Structure formats: C-alpha cells, structure tokens
C-alpha cells in the first residue's frame, strides 16, 4: 500500500476520486514531511503560506465538479527562479532576499490554471549559475541518497524534492543540463522541452537563448503531463513557437520500440569516464535493442568544444540579463551577488567587450551553428541519440570550491543538445557506489512526444526509478 508521498499524479487523482484522502490531507502530509526533513536537506527556501487554504478550495471543487483540470490538487515544488505571487522569489541569491514578485510567471500561471498547488520554492544554484546547487546563497541542498553528496544543479532543490518525495512533482528549468543533471544525480525523471516550447516570461533569465522551463517528476508519465500543461505559445515571450502542443501523455505506453532508430554518441563515452558508468550506458543500449530498437554508434563533435561555446554564450547573456539588478526598483545592491555570479558577469562582460566580441561571442555562435547542423544531419537517420547525462555520479559537498568552470565541465555531455535548443528526457539507468546514474534520450526540436515515448518505454521495462528511504540515508 503506497504512502501518500509515493503516489504519482494519476494515483493522486484516483485517491481523490475514491475519496481515500483529500487534497488537504495530502498537502498537510507533505508539509509535515517538509518540516521533518527540510532542515537536513535544505530543499525548500520558502513555503506557500496559503497552501492549506488553497487545498481546501480544491477539495470543494472536486466535490462539486469532480476532477476536470489536468493537475487539480497536485502538490508541486517550484524552482525559485519562477516568479510566484504570494511566495518570495530569490533565485537563491542575497540580492533578491525578501523579494515578493509583482507578477506571475507564464508557466506557473498555467500550472495554477490546471489546478496545481504550490508547496513552496526550491533551492537552486544562485541565479542558476552552476551544476551543484552549491553556489546558492542559502546553503547547498543535500542529495537524498547521501547527504554528503550534492544533488546537482541548478534545479537541485526541485530534483531533491521529488527524490525525497516532498512533493508529487516539481518544476525546474534548464539552460544546459539544469534539469537533466540534478534529475540524474538524484535518480529521478527530468524532461527538457525544446527551447521555445514553454514560455520564459517570469522565469528569471540566465542564458536567454537556451533557458527552457521543464518538469522534474517521479515518472515519465508525470513529466509528460506537466510538460503538456506548461507548453504552448506565450504572447509575452516572442521566442515561443506557434506550433501546436501535442497531447504528450497519449504517446506513452508503447509496448516496444520496434522501428525506432537510436544513435549512441561515442564521444559521450568520455575517455576518463568510469568503466562502471560506461557499462550502464552500454547496458541501456542493449535494453533498447531488446525492446526492438536499432542502436548504432554515432559521432558528434568532441564535447569539449561545447564547453567553449556554452561558456561564452551563457556568460555573455548572463552579464546582460543581470544588469537590471541595480537595487533601484527592487532587490539589494550589486555587492550582494555571490562570487560565482560576479565571476560569470565579469567573464561575460569581457567576452562582449569591444575588441573581443568577434573572437569570442561571434565565434562561439558560429561553432554553435556547426553543432546544430550536426544534430540535424543525425536526426535525418536517427529518432534519438543517447548517452550519459553526467560524467559520473553525484559529487561530494565542497567539490565546486576553486573550480571556476565547475558547472560547464560537469555539463559537458548536455551542453550540445542545450545550445541546439533540442528536447531531451533524462531517466535513471542504474547505480554506482549507491548513487544513481542518468541516461539522456535526446530528440530533434519539437519531437517531445518521441523523446517521452522512448523514455517511457525504457522506464517501464527497467526498474531504476527508485526513491531513497530518507529515514535511513539522512
């Protein structure tokens, strides 16, 4: 008999329908878990003061109308870079400490319109600058599998929330790995939609040309539903696509992968990658074959170049996007930025400054074109490419110290797909040293259905989506 915090979205709705529990019950259950475990995990920075009242209203709605909104009564954890009216939003930085948003982000508006309840805002790398959640100004989040380990980042809080089962589902964002990598380190399912699929209005900008809001959830099925709800053209975001949003959940539950052609990126099996991690990836390839897919080796540009491209593009855009934080209209003064943020602003200012623009920014964007072209070529033949999400399992607390390029180095395997704006699902594919390893299933732009279908089939035919017993691990 599953406990309330173990239920998927579908199971929660079944519980509501059968009147096994109410929304208020579920929310109170999560809140008491949060009270118990958050001090050790540091997942939530702020809680929604109105959660119980909102839950009561939802119970009333369920009684009167039944469940006719897709995420009705689903308790969610929201990454703290999304502006949420009534709940403070800080992007985990001192510069926004105490900031109460003056408007609601597009994506959280859609979640609210679908009936979701926000439990609170989750910890992240300060301004999303990192892949560890260690650059947060409010302390790192701890990995639920092992509290001495990092959860990954920048959506570390959201990934840990799902892994520690402190929410039914979570919202994160990915600039280059920030959904997939913490999902991998925490052993949960993360999904990055195509850039421009979900609106960025109200999501504190990091790298404007790659930021992609997306779900972190217990299962691919849950991720697919949340992805569907948040996707669609946004009148307040000029970079969103007018292409219609497919009904992702209807593409799941394929019994096999016959006719699917998958490319395993040989460069993603890094020379310095641990053998036991490599083995898990090769095992995954075998699994796909056993499900009827054709899996062949494919070649992409050496991912080390992606580090260069991503570093320049991201830091340049970051330096510009953080210029509005001057302490005049909101927030504190610029000396409240943490060191990592300052470093990125500085480097980005340098790469855009006169005399350097051509050599750095323009050059990086040209290499970006090559990466995009390479993927386009591969997707002519293959439905998806796969590889590890991260070079290895979760690293220990303190690993980021004195590592000015930590984030970009850790994201080496996901940067290419991010700068190309592709869609990718990250699902657990095994364990090493008791820590989860994640697999990425990357597809061409606007092929979310395909990525989710393949990920779902793989997940249902494996048993790697597990949750730690945090009473034991913490």
């Amino acid at each position, binding site marked *: 008999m599953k406990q309330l915090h173990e239920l998927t979205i579908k199971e929660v709705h079944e519980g509501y329908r059968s009147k096994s529990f109410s929304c208020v019950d579920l929310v109170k259950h999560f809140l008491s878990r949060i009270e118990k475990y958050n001090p050790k995990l540091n997942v939530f920075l702020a809680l929604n003061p109105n959660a119980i009242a909102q839950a009561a209203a939802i119970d009333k709605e369920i009684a009167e109308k039944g469940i006719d909104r897709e995420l009705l009564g689903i308790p969610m954890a929201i990454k703290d870079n999304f502006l949420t009216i009534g709940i403070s939003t800080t992007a985990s930085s001192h510069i926004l400490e105490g900031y109460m948003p003056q*408007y609601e982000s597009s994506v959280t508006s859609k979640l609210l319109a679908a009936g979701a309840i926000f439990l609170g805002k989750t910890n992240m790398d300060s301004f999303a600058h990192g892949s560890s959640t260690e650059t947060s100004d409010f302390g790192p989040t701890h990995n639920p599998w092992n509290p001495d380990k990092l959860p990954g980042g920048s959506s570390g809080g959201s990934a840990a929330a799902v892994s520690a089962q402190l929410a039914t589902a979570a919202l994160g964002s990915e600039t280059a790995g920030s959904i997939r990598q913490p999902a991998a380190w925490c052993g949960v399912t993360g999904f990055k939609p195509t850039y421009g699929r979900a609106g960025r209005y109200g999501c504190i900008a990091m790298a404007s040309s790659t930021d992609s809001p997306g779900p972190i959830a217990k299962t691919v099925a849950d991720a697919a539903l949340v992805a569907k709800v948040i996707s669609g053209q946004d009148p307040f975001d000029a970079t969103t696509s007018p292409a219609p949003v497919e009904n992702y959940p209807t593409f799941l539950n394929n019994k096999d992968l016959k006719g699917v052609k998958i490319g395993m990126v040989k460069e993603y099996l890094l020379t310095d990658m641990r053998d036991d991690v490599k083995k898990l990836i090769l095992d995954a390839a075998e699994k796909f074959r056993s499900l009827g897919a054709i899996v062949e080796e494919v070649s992409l540009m050496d991912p080390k170049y992606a580090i260069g491209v991503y570093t320049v593009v991201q830091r340049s855009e970051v330096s510009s996007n953080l210029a509005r934080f001057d302490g005049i209209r909101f927030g504190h003064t610029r000396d409240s930025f943490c060191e990592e943020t300052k470093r990125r602003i500085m480097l980005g200012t340098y790469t855009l400054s006169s005399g350097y623009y051509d050599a750095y920014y323009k050059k990086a964007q040209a290499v970006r074109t090559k990466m995009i072209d390479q993927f386009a070529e591969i997707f002519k033949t293959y439905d998806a490419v796969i590889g590890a999400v991260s070079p290895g399992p979760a690293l220990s607390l303190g690993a980021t110290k004195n590592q000015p390029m930590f984030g970009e180095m850790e994201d080496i395997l996901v940067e290419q797909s991010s700068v190309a704006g592709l869609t990718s699902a990250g699902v657990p594919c095994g364990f090493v040293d008791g820590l989860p390893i994640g697999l990425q299933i990357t597809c061409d732009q606007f092929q979310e259905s395909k990525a989710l279908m393949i990920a779902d089939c793989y997940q249902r035919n494996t048993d790697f989506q597990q949750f730690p017993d945090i009473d034991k691990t913490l």
Partner: protein
Amino acid sequence: MNITPLIGLEVHVELETKSKMFCGCPADHFGKVPNTQTCPVCLGLPGALPVPNKKALESCLKIGLALNCSINRLSKFDRKQYFYPDLAKGYQISQYDQPFCSEGFLNLDSGKKIGIERVHQEEDTGKLQHTVLNGEKVTLVDFNRSGVPLVEIVSKPDMSSSAEAKEYLKKVHEIIRAIGVSSADMEKGQMRLEPTVNVCIENEAGIRYTPLVEIKNINSFNFAVQAIEFEIKRQVEDFEKTGVEKSSTNKTTRGYDSVKKVTFLQRTKEEAKDYRYFPEPDIPPFIIEEDFVEKIGKELPLLPDQEISSLKNLGVERKDAKILVSTQNQVAIQIIHDYSDDDRIESKKLASLIVNGKLDPAEHVLVRYQELTKVGNTDRGELEKVIQGIMLANPVLVADFKGGKIAVAGFFVGQAMKETKGTADPKTLSEVVLDLLNK
C-alpha cells in the same frame, strides 16, 4: 583659410502609438502621475521579456521610406548596454548593425541632397528629475516613459551651415507630422535633436579636420542654430590655438546653455563608451519582403515637398503652397485639386483667397469665389450719376480737392462704393471720381 562646417544631425522621434514598444502599457505618458503606466517589461523586473509593437515597426519603415531609404531585407534588434538609473534593464533595446532602414536622403529647397545614414527603432528611457530630499541631493525616477517607441534618424554630416541644419530639421519635422506617426511636439520632447559638428579647414598647410563634437540638450530649432554657430566659431578658434585634429578617440560631448548662448564641455570619459552590442536573444529577427515594403509605401500620404510641388504645378504660388502644406490644411488642398479642372476657377487665385482668409473652403466654394473675384460694375454712366450725387452733398470737400487736398478723393471713392453696395469696379470708380473732381 577656407572653412567648411560639417554638420550632422541625429533626431529622435517619439512615436504616437497606443502602446509602448515592447509591452502593452500606454505610450501617452506626458503629464501622467509618475510610475502609473509601467508593467514588468518596461519596469525591467526579473523575468520580463519584450515583444515588439507592430505599428511601431511599420511607423519606422514609413519614416524610412519618406526619407528615401532602402528597407533592409534582414534586420534585428540589439542590446546597447550601459548603466544609468533611467535605464531599467541596464540595456536599451535598439538596432546596431542591421537596422530597418538605411542609405536615404532629403532634398533641401536649394536642391542639395542631405544623406541619411540610417533610420532605426529603439525604446525610450525613464525620466529623471534632480531634487533635494531631507537635505540630500537625490534624483527621482519615473518609468512612465520607459519603453515608449522611438525612431532614430541619423543624417550624414552633409550640412554646411546652421541655416541648412535648420531647414533639414524643419523638413524632417513636417514629414513626420505629415505621415502621422508623431506630433513631433518639441516642447513635449517628442522630437529631440543632437547636432554633431566639426570643421574642415583648408589652408596652405593642407586640409585638416577639427575634432567631432556632439551637442546635447537642445530643444528647439533656434537653439540648434545658435549652438551650431557658436560651436563652429569655437572650433576654428581652438584649432588656431592648439592645432588639434580629429582622431578616432577625441570626440567629445558638449551641452548647450541657452541663456549664456554657449556650449560647454560635459564630463568626458577616459575611455570611449563600450556598449557591448550583441543581438537581442529575446526577439527573433525580421525578414521584410518587397511586397510588404510596397504595401507600407502605398499607405504613405503625399509628403510635404511632394504636395507643394503638385500645388505649384496647378499654378499656385510657392509661398501660398508652403503655408497650406505647413498648416496641414488638407481641406483647402483638396478643394484646390478638386477645382483645378474647373474653368471658372483659377487655382492660383483660389489658393491666395484661402490663405488670406477671404474664402473658407468649407463654404460653397464656387459661389463665394465668384463673389470675391467678379469684375465690378464698370458702367461709367451709372457711376457718374452716383458720384455726382455725393459731390452735390459735399461741396466743402469738393472745394478742398480743388484747393489741393488730393487725398479727399478717397472719401468719394469710399462713399460711392458704399452706395453701390460694393458692386462698383474699384479701378473704374477711382478713375471716374478723379475725372469728375478734376473737371
């Protein structure tokens, strides 16, 4: 020594769209209560994003076409980055290397062509006000104006006198108003100007150029003239003293003091400004095809110079044509065109009557025109009868005339005109009066 001033003008026009450039806040900000017309976008709040105003884009294209520019097929927005309290985002969304319009021109009345470098789109900043609060010097910021659409028109340095500069400004002003994209009210700051001046000095030593000077804070055409003239003199004097020539690093900015009538050096930066332009990632680029440019072109009304020409072609005098066009008297202009084929009406005369206020184009034009231009009664016999009657009634004045007071004749002309109820032909009447008085 041969001195040739090289004057360029940068004009900013505030468009009169309903909403701002990148958000739906009202664009009409003049005189509104501070910070009541802002939203996350124009206030630069975290997470806000720009979406361009279609009408503003079209207005920019119209201005470009009216100034004979080429409309670039590919264009985009760029971020111009600098820190200032009135710039909410810490960058202004503008256009750098791929503006909407480029390489145009404007003809002065003399026929001289003034080149136009570019016409591009950008957004306005907030407004600053300096004051003292609790004994401290502070600056107050109002963001109602932040994000209002601007079009920047940059001329080439083709003007060689303050008079040419003034004519250029007046013509640009007229064109903007004629297209209907802005009232260009200088007092409301809807049209702002920045001259850039330097001088070409030719003497036995050769041809040399003085350093470029940009002059800010000029809010009328006359101040622009004064500032330019002062600056030309100052530069020549300075050059004679120091011999410093124009280089890529010695452009300066000066303000204009309209009271003292001088330009003064504003704080210079040791380094040239580095705006770190890069393409605006939040706004996809634009591809503007020929047929769209044509469609916009068709929406343009006749421009002032074109209208003046077409009136002149009908025989209207230049001075009358200019008045009708500059006062935007569309009704009158239409009437003149409408009756241009009518043999009963002479366009030249009709225009003159309207300009002199004698004929209101809203009235029944033909009737009134005929009333005003009809040849009066030239029947000498009839007029003699009338005048003789007046002479009989005024023997003293007749005697005065005969005694040498010639001006008295005017009295008789006036009286006779009154008695004939204005129907007498003035010329004939005068002749008859004089004949009779001289008998």
